[in-house]
């Protein structure tokens, strides 16, 4: 059972998803959240190292867990942020066939993507980020820590 008592946001680790250079900006976001999608272009354009952490709210946005798993699976093939950018840029097309289109566009191995996004390791990786957000008191997305 996870420990959800108060704790600071964990420092950036080697297996975090990071992009860019400069000051570190840690973003807890939900890939199905409209506020996150609206804020993402501005967040992504900052001259900073952007660290993306998963905060899927499954009850409110039933597609969230699948989208986070898709991003994580793309990340295992080196295309994490490309998948995130694509999901936020086109929020109306997030069903499985749309994910497969993205996989093809990004040149990913579909068979591996399908296996990875359903794996317990990917689910645990997402849950790790989620728990760290709860421990830091995150209540809404996007939650940005600088």
């Amino acid at each position, binding site marked *: 059972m996870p420990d959800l*008592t108060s*704790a600071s946001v964990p420092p950036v680790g080697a297996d975090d998803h990071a992009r860019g250079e400069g000051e570190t900006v840690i973003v807890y976001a939900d890939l199905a959240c409209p506020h996150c999608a609206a804020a993402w272009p501005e967040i992504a354009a900052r001259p900073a190292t952007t660290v993306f952490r998963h905060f899927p709210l499954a009850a409110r*946005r039933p597609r969230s867990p699948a989208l986070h798993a898709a991003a994580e699976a793309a990340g295992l093939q080196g295309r994490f942020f490309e998948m995130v950018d694509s999901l936020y840029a086109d929020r109306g097309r997030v069903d499985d066939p749309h994910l497969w289109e993205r996989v093809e566009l990004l040149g990913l191995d579909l068979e591996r993507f399908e296996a990875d996004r359903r794996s317990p390791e990917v689910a645990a990786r997402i849950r790790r980020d989620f728990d760290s957000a709860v421990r830091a008191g995150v209540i809404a997305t996007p939650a940005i820590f600088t």
Partner: protein
Amino acid sequence: MGVIAAGEAAPDFTLRDQDGEEVSLSDYRGRRVLFVFYPFDFSSVCSDQLTVYQEVKPELEEKGVELVGISVDHIHAHKAFREKLGIDTTLLADFEPKGAVAKAYGSYFEPAGMANRTLVLVDADGRVEWSYESPSPGEAPGANLIFDALA
């Protein structure tokens, strides 16, 4: 007057839930229950708060704690709010007389006619085990504070 303090007896009440069923404090005797008093169904902060709490509901239940929301909204509003958020947390309507339970728990904000944003953990014997009042109604307490109280 602030929120009811730890050690006090939790005032008994009977309210109706989102389905119109009567729920009394005494129904929870023998179990721990966390009452989440919040201002309004459908408001943005309350939506965020109840959404995040829903995600950690299994962990609360593992600790033997039931989660129950209370606001001055009517049962029909509660039902629609639950459906909108996709949550299955019980929501009690402190509707008529308005805010009577919130007042009894020191969790009513007169100027706005709403429940203040507070958390009240009641133990298995009906006594307040822990309580928390947000610094302002616009600020939702993170779920971490609940787990700190249970640790």
